[in-house]
């Protein structure tokens, strides 16, 4: 065989191998979804959504977990969104090129890489013990807020950076102050990008299990929380609890819970991807 032909053959083989590797991840995702749906699809019913957990697998449902998840999401958004956007605005628009800002930037980059379970230990040490908030919704939401803050901050900064300087110059030229320029020009223009970041942050928070287990969220809750100081459980913890049991009937429940969780997560992710796509297409400065 000639050298050239051999090279071509190697090249062909390599391309196929690279293609298969790319598809491998997606194939894995497909198998995962098929497996979960075939395991738990039959268990999904209105009753499953509206029942409390139970010792008997057939009667158990995810009501308290689902309500807990909604509470946690709402509270996390309430804390993390204004704080994250505020921090992003400061770092991008006000505090450029001063050493303190540089310190905060490095710090945020490092925080983004801290494992989520460490945030759980932080929550346990500060919110549960120091502030005596116990294992409440408030503790859970505060812990998750700190966890997702870097995501929102980074998204805010990137969207603000993409706004052309001429927009700001025009606003300043008309006599607007810095805050007027930000609140009426820059921020609205950057909003789709920021929103994408917020949704991604929430979809991260919805699936987090480890930090909430670490702060001591309960795995068995047969009532609904009435205030932010009540104990709670969330969907991923309920799933974890069911997976940990040896009986097969509970594994089926876990699979059904996973279907609900995946639908919620994928829905949030698709909204974020759609927004990003639409935004990228429409606005050309």
């Amino acid at each position, binding site marked *: 065989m000639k050298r050239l032909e051999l090279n071509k053959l190697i090249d062909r083989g390599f391309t196929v191998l690279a293609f298969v590797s790319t598809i491998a*991840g997606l194939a894995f995702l497909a198998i995962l979804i098929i497996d979960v749906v075939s395991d738990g699809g039959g268990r999904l019913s209105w009753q499953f959504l509206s029942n409390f957990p139970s010792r008997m697998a057939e009667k158990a449902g995810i009501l308290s977990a689902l309500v807990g998840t909604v509470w946690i999401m709402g509270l996390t958004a309430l804390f993390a969104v204004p704080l994250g956007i505020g921090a992003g605005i400061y770092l991008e628009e006000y505090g450029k090129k001063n050493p303190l800002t540089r310190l905060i930037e490095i710090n945020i980059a490092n925080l983004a890489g801290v*494992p989520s379970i460490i945030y759980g230990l932080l929550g346990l040490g*500060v919110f549960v013990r120091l502030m005596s908030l116990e294992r409440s919704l408030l503790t859970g939401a505060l812990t998750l807020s700190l966890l997702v803050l870097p995501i929102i901050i980074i998204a805010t900064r990137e969207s603000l950076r993409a706004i052309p300087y001429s927009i700001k110059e025009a606003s300043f030229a008309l006599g607007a102050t810095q805050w007027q320029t930000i609140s009426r020009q820059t921020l609205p223009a950057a909003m789709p990008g920021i929103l994408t970041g917020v949704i991604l942050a929430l979809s991260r928070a919805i*699936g987090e299990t480890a930090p909430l287990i*670490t702060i001591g969220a309960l795995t068995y809750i047969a009532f609904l929380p009435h205030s932010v100081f009540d104990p709670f459980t969330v969907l991923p913890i309920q799933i974890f609890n069911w997976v940990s049991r040896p009986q097969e009937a509970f594994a089926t429940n876990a699979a059904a819970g*996973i279907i609900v969780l995946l639908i919620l997560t994928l829905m949030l992710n698709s909204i974020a991807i759609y927004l990003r796509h639409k935004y990228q297409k429409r606005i050309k400065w």
Partner: protein
Amino acid sequence: MTKREKQRFREGLIKGALFLCAFLSVFTTIGIIGVLLFETIEFFKEVSIVEFMTDTQWTPLFVDKHFGIMPLVAGTALVSFIAMCVAVPLGLLSAIYLSECANKKFRATVKPMLEILAGVPTVVYGYFALLFVTPVLQKIFPDLSGFNALSAGIVMGIMILPMVSSMSEDAMYAVPRALKDGAYALGATRFQVSMTVVVPAALSGIMSSFVLAASRAIGETMIVAIAAGQQPNLTLNPFVPVETITAYIVQVSLGDTPTGTIEYKTIFAAGMTLFLFTLALNMVSTWLRERFREEYT
């Protein structure tokens, strides 16, 4: 107060409030280090640091207590190593395919789909590792235990795959067109261009993605807590149950451990160990990425 003064006052107030938002992150870091340090020091008042580093057993929850972190570190390293064995080749190859071979449309479709892989909650991966991957592997290796490092590692590898492929792809995409064109003009095939031009030129960016993925792997909790077992064995055998640092923290958190006891303090000492490992890896990753940035700009 004139209108202008009022306005200036308001501007200053807003700036201050925004600064506080940004500064909160510093408090978060102080909080993390403070909590970990405080409880770890309390821990070392009762257990010598030599025992912590050299003892080969970790049994704080038993009557005969041993506090050697080594079995947990070994378990963490083993699972992460298996994950990297999956994520590095697959991630690198798919990055090469996406940046060098695929057409625009394929790239635009597949990249967001790979991102979904990263967005799947980890408890879902844990379920899949325990109840799908392990039974399948048991057909190939009959002596595989029901809880094992192998299946947890493989599934974790898939979880960190999008991180490796997307960051490596970004690095390869940034390699100047002229470098590749030069090689193609000399008659190199796509394989030769990828291996001898693109990968070497993007190497520090690629390495940075590997290190960051490794850092994610050692901090990952739910997959190992569900599928790898909760037995701190000092072993490199992927077929038997192991316990990682993160899985141990979960194990203690699920039980009713009263605050102030030595069992309670162990999770902070273990957490401190984990924090230091990930911090070191993240710093190496950032350093590699910064170095790469200097090369072509």
